[in-house]
């Protein structure tokens, strides 16, 4: 249980970021890249300032900055959102590898970072934050005017526009928020869990977060549940691979694939009958019909 809670924040926060962006109508394949930016700059920020909290902030800002590029391409220039996201992932892969080498002279890991303070249960603040975030996002979606507008913009932006809602501005805010959440999730990996940045981060967690968005039917609570489920599968896999030892290492791949296989199964069986927001991924053209 503790292991689940410790491993959950990155995935959970990234999944919420995905929900936020996609409910506003912007597909965010770039979660993986945004997490990577967040993970690296959180580590770098902590090392330079000596404060892990400022590190987390750096991570969120770096994620948001990466998301800013996505927003600019998708909203301003109406680029294909999937292509833009993939490009972002590739840029993150190359650029961060380069920066790791440039700043820390290493191609593998960064120096250790100052750890986040832990409470008496051994959890850091990020765990509690990530557990509260889905509730907050749920409240925003269901009860606030801001949330109502997000839902409308993701379903039928032209209808919202005729009522005076500023579609592109709202979408930009959501994409930036999405990046900040994903960046914070990435920070959770480097500063929160491992205590250093590893050049393989986030190792597919961003894509897993996307799966959690779909599995969770594009709702904050659903996606959070799915993320916790994946985190549980992840924790289980770690436990098992510890106990398997070298002889059975070949089986590790099976366990690694477990969460994804379960997602595919669930989707294929139609247990979670899902429908994406109607305007998800469709660029908004103000004078279009």
């Amino acid at each position, binding site marked *: 249980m503790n292991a689940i809670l410790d491993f959950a924040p990155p995935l959970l926060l990234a999944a919420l970021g995905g929900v936020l962006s996609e409910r506003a109508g912007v597909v965010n394949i770039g979660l993986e890249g945004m997490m990577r930016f967040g993970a690296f700059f959180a580590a770098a920020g902590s090392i330079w300032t000596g404060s892990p909290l400022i590190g987390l902030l750096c991570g969120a800002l770096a994620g948001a900055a990466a998301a800013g590029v996505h927003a600019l391409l998708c909203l301003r220039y109406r680029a294909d959102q999937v292509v833009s996201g993939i490009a972002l992932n590739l840029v993150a892969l190359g650029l961060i590898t380069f920066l790791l080498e440039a700043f820390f002279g290493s191609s593998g890991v960064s120096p250790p970072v100052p750890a986040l303070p832990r409470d008496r249960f051994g959890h850091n603040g990020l765990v509690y934050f990530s557990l509260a975030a889905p509730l907050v996002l749920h409240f925003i979606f269901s009860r606030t*005017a801001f949330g*109502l507008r997000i*839902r409308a913009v993701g379903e*039928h932006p032209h*209808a919202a*526009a*005729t*009522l005076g809602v500023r579609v592109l501005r709202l979408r930009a805010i959501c994409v930036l928020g999405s990046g900040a959440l994903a960046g914070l999730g990435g920070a959770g990996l480097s500063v929160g869990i491992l205590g250093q940045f590893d050049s393989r981060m986030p190792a597919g967690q961003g894509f897993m977060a996307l799966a959690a968005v779909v599995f969770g039917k594009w709702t904050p609570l659903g996606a959070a549940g799915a993320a916790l489920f994946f985190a549980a599968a992840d924790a289980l896999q770690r436990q098992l691979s510890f106990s398997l030892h070298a002889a059975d290492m070949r089986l590790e791949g099976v366990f690694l694939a477990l969460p994804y296989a379960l997602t595919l199964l669930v989707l294929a069986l139609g247990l979670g009958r899902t429908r994406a927001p*109607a305007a998800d991924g469709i660029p908004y053209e103000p004078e279009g019909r």
Partner: protein
Amino acid sequence: MSAAPALELRGIVKRFAGVAAVDGVSLSVNPGEVLALVGENGAGKSTMISVACGLYRADEGEVRAFGAALPPGDPRAAIEAGVGVVYQHFMLVGPLTVWENVVLGREPLRFGIVVDRERARREVAEAAQRFGLTVDVDARIESLGVGAQQRVEIVKQLWRGARVLILDEPTAVLSPREADELTQTVRALAKDGRSVVFISHKLREVLAVADRVAVLRRGKLVQTVARAQTSAQQLAEAVMGTVLPALAREATAAGLLPAQESLDLEEAAAKTAPGATYPAPRLVARDLCCEGSRGRPALRGLSLAIFAGEIVGLAGVDGNGQSELAEVLTGLRAFQGTLELDGREGWARSPGAARAAGVVHLPEDRHRRALCLPLNVEENLSLGRQGDPPYAHGALIDRAGRRKKALELVHAFDVRPPDPLARAGSLSGGNQQKLVAARELAGGAPPLLVVAVQPTRGLDLGAAAKVHDALRTARDAGAAVIVLSLDLDELRALASRIVVLYDGRVTGEAPPTASDDALGRLMLGQPPAGTPMASKPAGMQPRAELPE
């Protein structure tokens, strides 16, 4: 009340890619007045609306509301000034509820950020009640029928304090009864001192509802006349520029103009009296049953016989099985029961089989079903027969043959521009429908059965006449033609008999000369007039809104 018009557009010019869609139009509507805006597709009506409500920024000219100039390209300012639009394609968010849609963008708040649900629901209900518009504020939009959605749109504008209401083709999707109710609503709004701009193709409706009529043609204002000083004939001439005698008669018969004489119709009906020269029916349906989109039974034992060489109109309130019947006949929907075409069964098991058997389809939604918009005209014309001559030669496309056939069809059906390489999506709605008609009716072997669903929905007079002509030509060539339409006048103009559907069954049949009232009773599943239970038309009202 001030002397300033409620809404005034002065010298509006709007160009798209250098082409003026609206070219120097000035219009105004006074408080308490209903102004009708008529014109063919592409005449610039929609562009005018978009300029008026701030969605488009005019290249020249200005928009004034109650004497004050509106900042161009700012929908919010137009709303603030009291200008509300009900679009032809509703601007409603399907998964949200009625009240959420109404308050979106101007939500009543508590604590500055939380939507005050109770207040929102109460206010929306009050706004609806004030003008006698029945809506369930908690219903999800996607669960509502078209008529109810339109009422939501009107409530939405009224709740926002719209004092000028612009209705874009409001009756295009309504049943005759819903259209009548809308007319009453519009008159009630005008009585309340609000202004309405009513856009329509149907001159008869326009004359019933408007105080003044403005006619647009090719982006220019042709005339503005008071209702009392014009006639349907005169309006039709203004809309079309010139009126060919045949076209005018056609338009009259189609209900686009009020009928002066019904002689033509009776003549036409007599000429194609059913059964006289065609002994065996072309199409026999016995006890057809099928499910609708949500697993509800849509057809419940429908039986029908249709002869070669006749046009049969199928009438009914939307959602009584018409769409499903069209889908069954074209192989798109599974069914139980017997379905024979020239005495043979099994042809309706798939769309391919139905096409091979000589069934052609002019579907309800030409964008979703009939055309592939990104492809060009000649490619669209070959779809469905793309593997057969003259469109193909063995496994390869016969480009020369396809081009020749496409040019032939495009000219025969007057598709404009007559360019086989034009993208289908770039054509106007009327020309798209002509394209569909050309492919279905003349693209291959002469059809045995034509299924046309709302064939002229949203089309202008000229295009509607063309499509009607094409259906008549198919009939004269020996096809059995079924026309499903919500527009009774269209059925009267085309059909030799009108079969009425109610709740998935045939409730009766009437000659095209039957009155609205008689057909209306059948459409509501009631016995024809004269029986004791039919007291007065108002008694039918509660049933007019049938579940989808």
